[in-house]
């Protein structure tokens, strides 16, 4: 990578009274990168954005933009634009005036006709061209959210900070806007830090993704890295619906995985000390129904169990299978699941390379992945 990172956070800490919002957070976003910050509510996502924007003062650590330390630099001098989850639109003004606000400010002033042109472009892009004369109070939540996004996109900025900018749109519009945001990101190459609690959104948008929990960065990486090599069960659980299966068990002296009730054993690709309490992770879409067919990746592993329940997910079906005392869910094409009724015995196949091995979860500390 050439030049300094666009956004660098080192050991940033922020407390509100007794509550710790950020606990030594590290983050690096490269110039022009579209970075998604994923985490549950209360993980410190919004605080991270506000700290970068200069709206909150961290009590520890440093914030750098383009390699320059931002300590004490006012928000209006940082050159970043932020879209608030609450929209933070000026309710007493029209949508147009809200979009025009940055372009009328002393720092980003544009001549009126240029501003009008630019606002027109953005409004059309976001599909709010017809709403510009409306008072913000008379817009729906989805419309407000798009105006808020427009207020960010309309102005030049070294970085966009977007806080759940699509959360209030209906599913269809959200998908369309996601595509649009990706396109904007690709064309503009403006560094974007995008906060969301929706892993689908993060996977769809992010060049890289950071998973945050309790004010700390758990793992950053590309979507492939996070999907295939999650650092712990928390990250593994964060991606994929239905969620990854995490089967508790132990490592046998031969280095096999044995389920906690001893109902089955599977060989492990990674070496683990015998006797360790572990969890075996396997994603529902990595499990096949029926006897293993000789696929390219070596011999598939086989499991047998009984159907517990089936649930239709559009074109696919989620099948929950009982194996001993454990439950395992898998997703198969609808046709394959036809005729499956509860208690019917089934055979399952899974490729050995799709198995992930984690330490057992401990209170407040998800199990780490065991790798070679």
């Amino acid at each position: 990578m050439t030049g300094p990172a666009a956004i660098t956070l080192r050991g940033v800490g922020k407390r509100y009274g007794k509550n710790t919002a950020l606990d030594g957070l590290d983050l690096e976003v490269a110039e022009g990168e579209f970075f998604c910050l994923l985490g549950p509510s209360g993980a410190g996502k919004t605080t991270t954005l506000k700290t970068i924007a200069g709206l909150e003062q961290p009590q520890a650590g440093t914030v750098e933009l383009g390699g320059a330390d931002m300590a004490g630099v006012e928000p209006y001098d940082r050159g970043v634009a932020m879209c608030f989850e609450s929209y933070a639109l000026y309710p007493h003004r029209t949508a147009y005036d809200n979009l025009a606000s940055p372009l009328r400010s002393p720092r980003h002033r544009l001549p009126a006709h240029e501003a009008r042109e630019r606002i027109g472009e953005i409004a059309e892009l976001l599909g709010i061209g017809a709403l510009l004369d409306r008072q913000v109070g008379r817009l729906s939540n989805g419309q407000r959210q798009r105006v808020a996004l427009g207020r960010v996109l309309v102005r030049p900025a070294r970085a966009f900070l977007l806080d759940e900018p699509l959360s209030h749109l209906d599913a269809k519009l959200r998908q369309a806007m996601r595509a649009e945001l990706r396109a904007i990101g690709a064309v503009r190459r403006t560094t974007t830090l995008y906060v969301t609690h929706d892993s689908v959104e993060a996977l769809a948008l992010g060049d890289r993704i950071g998973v945050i929990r309790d004010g700390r960065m758990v793992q950053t990486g590309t979507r492939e890295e996070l999907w295939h090599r999650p650092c712990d069960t928390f990250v593994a659980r964060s991606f994929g619906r239905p969620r990854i299966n995490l089967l508790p068990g132990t490592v046998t002296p031969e280095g096999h995985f044995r389920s906690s009730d001893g109902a089955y054993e599977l060989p492990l690709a990674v070496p683990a000390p015998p006797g360790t309490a572990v969890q075996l992770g396997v994603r529902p879409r990595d499990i096949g129904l029926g006897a293993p067919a000789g696929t390219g990746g070596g011999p598939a592993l086989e499991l047998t169990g009984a159907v517990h329940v089936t649930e239709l997910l559009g074109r696919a079906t989620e099948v929950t299978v009982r194996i001993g005392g454990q439950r395992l869910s898998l997703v198969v094409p609808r046709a394959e699941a036809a005729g499956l009724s509860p208690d019917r015995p089934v055979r399952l196949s899974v490729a050995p390379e799709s198995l992930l091995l984690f330490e057992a979860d401990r209170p407040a500390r998800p199990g780490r992945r065991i790798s070679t």
Partner: protein
Amino acid sequence: MPGRTASVPTAGHGAGAGKRAVPAWRRSLRPYLLIVPALLLTGGILYPFGLGLYYTLFDFAASKPQPDLVGVGNYRRILTQPAFWDSARVTVAYAVGAAAVETVLGVAVALLLHRSSPVGRVLEKILILPLMIAPVIAAIMWKLMLQPSVGVVNHLLEPFGLGGVQWTDTPTGALLSSIAVDVWVYTPFVAILALAGLRSLPASPFEAAAVDGAGWWFTFRRLTLPMLWPYVLVAVIFRFMDSLKVFDIIYALTEGGPGDSTMVLQIRAYLEAIRFQRYSFGISYMIVLWAVVYLVTMVLVRYLGRIQNRAAEVER
């Protein structure tokens, strides 16, 4: 949605050209700068208060411009003077009487208005009228009406055989008349707050009670009153504290008379300090009243906090 993507503006001012760092100490100074004027002004008001406290340690009076230090002598004199205790009794009687009547009447008016009958909707618009009239003007109005010989009240009572009542000329009559004026002015205050409270009560408990077939009295005792109480309490606190320091109404209506029958503490302090120009002694009176009001406020405000918490739980 068009597939077009907005172009980037060419200007390079996104990078924040002149970055000036504001040191942390200046940042933390910011809120203080905003309150400095208010602090100065408050100081300007606290100064005479402090000066007053200082005066009470002397026997400063117009007849004694070169005062001597008397220490707590003024306070000792006040607290051993029967006149002070008489005044204290009158003041408490006035405050309790006025606040009690205003609370009951105000809540009643609020409940009646809450039904929002056509008559009520019209009347509600003029509810605040007495409250916006200066209390001293209200007292003047009532003084004119309560004149024993030519006042309109006695004239209207005459047909009922009640003419010639000595409203403000008997000790009991004077106190009751002053309370009546207080009630006339301030009942809308209680009513307005209680009405706001009634209108903000959640509907669901009442719907549930109606479904259960609860009677009017039960609903009122078990639901309306407990949830309304925090609102009413705010009103009661304001009214009680304010009537402890009543001045205008009594000054205009009776000036403390007849005898000392309406000689509340602020009136007596006024007479001592301004009319008889015994400054130190008059201020000492006020300091005693101030201390009492302050203590009562603390107790009541704390109680209000507890009540508000409890009411919030009831609503949950």
